């Protein structure tokens, strides 16, 4: 099939102009003759659109919740590239791949461009006035508690307006839902240290023991951690740091560890207590409560339960004892079980025993305005919402920044229950699975067109309020910012209170300028302060430091024995959160789909990671399409033999398998959220992501896996390409 028609004119063009014509024809707004684009006269220059000169504006990355500060590069009034904001305390001018793909969320051709009202199976474009009027109409006569607002993590002034709106509606039903947030770790931290997110001084630690925390890949604030990690690795006054990663499935962080320890799924807490015990045996003084808990975890028991050799435990204990301060991090591998809280608590004990609290675990900077801090999302929210919907208690549902139809486990039957809600409003950039179920879809500005503020959950050196400002003109005239929408909705209720604010920008400016003394702008005049704030893209809170309380007791800590064999479903499913796909909301950005997964180098599809031993037992070879069946459902995907996984486990990446979300996401891979069993952590009620048991069967089909690595599968074939040396072989001091 010839993809584009070949006529004489094209032929001559190709012959005559050659590469030049081809090159020019792709440079954006040059296809004037098509009548699609408009000619902009440079006699009247749009602001900041100086032909040929790049201008830079600072804003905040919206691709994940880390809230990195970004600088957008603009030419002729359009954003070309997102770079890290060099003056940021969080990311210091650095950027991850996910963040950089933000421009593709902005320019994505699949964005929603008009408010859409459901008409049968189709969405019908309607005017904004009508849409907002319709919301008001539908809310009339609905009791406050029958209104629900589902969001992802929200912070800043949108959160303020949102709370005010909820208050105006008379509801407290704000469900903050994140499918893959570290919520159990938050709770455990709160218990162990008194704060949900203490500051982890990776850069100060000499040894890091990470229990499945993928802090270089997708955990909390990876760009920030990666920079600290770089300092940790340098042979500075601390010496070169040692990273030990304990997990059942190798994460990107695990791939960078000095020692990667594969552990039987769910036994991380046992291992932690085993190390505590070994530290005690090595002569470290243990507090009595801890000694009592850990004393039965001798090397033999640990080996039996976790599958890790006793020698390994002893060696690790010796290293931890010798090199201080160290840092022990509990990550997703610890929290993804029904006993996740206990695991996290056991791991936290290590920090206490090693005296890391206060040294490498520091108090985070505090935020003096609790109303703007992030409402951290969790997984139990969607369960609560689902329960309400099931009982018909929700009459009007608003949804912003969450896609539960895609991410909720199928056992919840979320989609079915959603249909019981009479009126559903979704604020969205794209028609994702949830938006497709909505009665009204309101198109949002992209993060590069909108005004807003946000407070990152994980702070760097200082406590900061990030400012999101439009980097360019709206791409589509009929999208609106969330703040503006909320303001309009609030004006429906509290006209008097908000009538002074023409738009969200004026609200934002006055809100920030009003508090400039608390934002480091004491004594400056309003305009100077505001301009400075916009030009740096953030303001810092002047606030007292937080403090940690490490008073938790080990008493009452009980770890269950390792999970029993399940002959029907013999394998543990470890859904992996990859750095680019996360929970799948960015799956429609082609750069991310085309970036090979760092460990498997697979692109444009999901896969099932199996240890070669397990695969051999099942007779599976690479590329076999296998069916992964859990008690809740099954998916089919290509098998990839991966040595970095425990033989008892299989791993499937999350975020693939969209049935909506545009041309680049739809139909790519399989949705692993769908087969997660509805097992929750006993203490927090959070969905235990790693607790699903599965079986694998061959379907008989086989494909060639589309991946970047060659057929020899990451072997260097005896050629010196990527060289590795051990620390005693190289001279690191004095390196530049």
């Amino acid at each position: 099939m010839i993809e584009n028609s070949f006529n004489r004119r094209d032929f001559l063009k190709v012959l005559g102009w050659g590469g030049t014509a081809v090159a020019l024809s792709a440079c954006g707004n040059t296809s004037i003759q098509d009548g699609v684009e408009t000619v902009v006269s440079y006699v009247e220059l749009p602001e900041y659109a100086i032909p040929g000169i790049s201008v830079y504006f600072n804003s905040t990355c919206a691709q994940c919740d880390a809230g990195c500060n970004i600088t957008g590069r603009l030419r002729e009034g359009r954003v070309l590239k997102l770079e890290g904001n060099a003056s940021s305390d969080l990311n210091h001018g650095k950027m991850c791949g996910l963040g950089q793909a933000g421009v593709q969320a902005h320019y994505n051709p699949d964005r929603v461009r008009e408010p859409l009202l459901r008409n049968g199976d189709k969405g019908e474009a309607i005017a904004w006035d009508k849409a907002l009027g319709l919301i008001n109409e539908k809310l009339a006569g609905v009791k406050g508690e029958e209104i629900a607002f589902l969001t992802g993590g929200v912070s800043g002034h949108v959160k303020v307006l949102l709370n005010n709106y909820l208050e105006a509606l008379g509801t407290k039903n704000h469900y903050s839902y994140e499918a893959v947030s570290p919520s159990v770790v938050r709770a455990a931290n709160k218990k162990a240290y008194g704060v949900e997110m203490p500051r982890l001084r990776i850069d100060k630690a000499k040894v890091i023991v990470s229990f499945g925390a993928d802090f270089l890949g997708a955990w909390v604030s990876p760009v920030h951690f990666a920079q600290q990690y770089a300092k940790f690795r340098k042979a500075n006054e601390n010496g070169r740091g040692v990273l030990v990663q304990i997990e059942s499935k190798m994460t990107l962080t695990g791939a960078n560890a000095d020692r990667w320890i594969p552990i039987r799924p769910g036994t991380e807490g046992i291992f932690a207590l085993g190390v505590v015990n070994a530290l005690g045996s090595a002569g470290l003084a243990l507090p009595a409560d801890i000694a009592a808990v850990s004393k039965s975890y001798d090397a033999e028991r640990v080996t039996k339960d976790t599958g890790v050799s006793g020698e390994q435990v002893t060696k690790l204990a010796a290293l931890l004892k010798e090199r201080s301060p160290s840092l022990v991090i509990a990550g997703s591998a610890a929290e993804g079980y029904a006993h996740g809280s206990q695991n996290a608590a056991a791991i936290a004990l290590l920090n206490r025993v090693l005296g890391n609290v206060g040294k490498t675990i520091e108090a985070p900077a505090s935020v003096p305005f609790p109303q703007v801090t992030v409402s951290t999302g969790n997984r139990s929210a969607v369960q609560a919402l689902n329960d309400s919907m099931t009982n018909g208690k929700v009459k009007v549902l608003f949804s912003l920044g969450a896609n539960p139809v895609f991410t909720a486990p199928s056992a919840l039957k979320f989609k079915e229950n959603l249909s019981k809600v009479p009126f559903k409003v979704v604020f969205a950039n794209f028609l994702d699975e949830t938006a497709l179920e909505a009665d009204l879809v309101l198109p949002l500005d992209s993060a590069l067109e909108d005004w807003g503020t946000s407070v990152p959950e994980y702070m760097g050196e200082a406590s900061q309020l990030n400012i999101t400002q439009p980097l360019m003109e709206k791409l589509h005239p009929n999208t609106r910012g969330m703040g503006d929408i909320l303001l309009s909705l609030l004006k429906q209720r509290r006209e008097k209170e908000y009538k002074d604010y023409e738009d969200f920008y004026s609200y934002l400016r006055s809100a920030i300028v009003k508090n400039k003394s608390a934002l480091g702008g004491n004594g400056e005049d309003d305009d100077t302060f505001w301009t400075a704030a916009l030009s740096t893209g953030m303001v810092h809170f002047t606030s007292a430091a937080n403090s940690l309380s490490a008073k938790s007791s080990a008493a009452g800590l009980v770890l269950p024995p390792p999970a029993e064999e399940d002959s029907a479903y013999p394998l543990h499913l470890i859904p992996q959160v990859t750095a680019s796909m996360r929970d799948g909301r960015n799956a429609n950005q082609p750069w991310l789909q085309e970036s090979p997964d760092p460990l498997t180098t697979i692109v444009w599809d999901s896969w099932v990671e199996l240890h070669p031993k397990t695969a051999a037992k099942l007779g599976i070879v690479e590329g076999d399409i296998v069916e992964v069946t859990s008690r809740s459902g099954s998916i089919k995907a290509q098998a990839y033999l991966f040595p970095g996984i425990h033989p008892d486990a299989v791993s499937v990446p999350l975020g693939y398998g969209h049935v909506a979300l545009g041309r680049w996401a739809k139909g790519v891979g399989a949705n692993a959220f769908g087969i997660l069993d509805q097992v929750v952590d006993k203490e927090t009620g959070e969905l235990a992501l790693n607790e699903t048991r599965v079986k694998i069967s061959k379907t008989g089909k086989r494909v060639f896996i589309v991946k970047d690595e060659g057929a020899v599968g990451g072997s260097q074939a005896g050629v010196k390409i990527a060289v590795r040396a051990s620390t005693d072989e190289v001279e690191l001091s004095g390196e530049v």
Partner: protein
Amino acid sequence: MEKDIRESIEWAKINGDVLKSLESPRPLFWVILVVALSMFGVGVGCEVYQYQIGMGVANLNNPQVWGLYIATFIFWIGMSHSGTLLSAILHLMHADWRKPIYRFAEAMTTFSLMTAGLFVMVHLGRLWQFYYAVPYPNERWVWPNFQSPLLWDAMAIFTYLSSSVIFLFIGMIPDLAICRDHLHPGWRKKLYTVLALGWEGTDRQWRNFRVTYLTVACFLIPLAVSVHSIVASDFAMSQQPGWHVTSFPPYFVAGALYSGCAAIITLFVILRYVFKFEEYMTLPILKKIVRLTFAIAMVWTYLNAVEFASVWYSHDEASKAVLIQKATGIYAPFWWMMNFCGSVVPFVMMIKRFQTSIPVMFAVSLLLNLGMWLERWMIVSPTFSHGYYPYLWDNNQWPTLVQWGIVFGSFGWFTLLFMGFCKLFPSVSMYEVKEMVYHRSLANKHVEQSLTMNVNELEEKGAH
């Protein structure tokens, strides 16, 4: 022993027999022509598609940047060497048995070079900018890169092609005069009148003709050697393991002569059958070519072994890996088949009975050609799939129908050209056959005389 040619052939019969081949073609001709045209059409279609969409439709990729195009290019270049062998080398060596068969071999040279030239174009990603490789003065004073073996290639092919055309034409002038004199009036007669340049066979013309023919032959031999050496340099001068071998140029030249000889046998059989040239393309001549082919086959086999051996003894791990991969990897069936066709099949030619067996030799020649085509493919593709960089090893892509179609089309194109030639120009050199007949009969006369003398002497001796 059977004679290469019957000395008593009338010269007029020679004219008549050969000129008969220029008469209106039989229906079979048109059938083959249509077949060849449609093959060519398939090739053109594939090329248009590839031109329009991009080289990607050929399923080439990052390590496998070259594919069947380059392999087939070398194949056609190799084919072209036979003409030079027969007309120039054997001319210098006064092997007059070449005379009835060198004309079509030379035509084959020219046409296979023209076909090879097409592949250079087909291979280019930006065919429309092809002229950038031509060293022409331009207003920006930008010149091509004279260090590139590819440019040498272009220059060598141009030189070889134009010299071959000239050589073919010069050698044909006396025959064109015959055509002019003995064909019925018509457009062809006018054509021959122009092409014959007014040749009358005067002693002055013959004298200069002889010197010129000899001189051009002398130029053509080193040229032919250099052409395939340069094609070999495309590989040998590069930094791919398995290619960077000094024995490549002689190896390529031997391979070229080899495939050329095989092709001559094929066409020999076809022409002999089609034009009923049994009087001229005789079995003893076939036997001689077969022996020559066998000799070259052994040279090739030796050089092939030398290539393996030099890789083996070089202790260059990368080159060794390529060799092992050729013998055991996914290309192994083709590699072994190439070795079988190239080194084992020729031993059939050792068997006397088969040396003059037309069907056997036809089959053998086809197998040899297949083997030589595979050889070129085995030089190109397996090496790419096993270069220095292991990350991209075995990133193989089976050639798509577009690639096969263009390769297929090239055979149609060659057939078209060759058929056209055979119908327009005498495919057996009439004047040289006459010379051969004349000199053989002269020689016979001498032999008879001396034999008679010997017998007389013997009788005299016996009388004593």
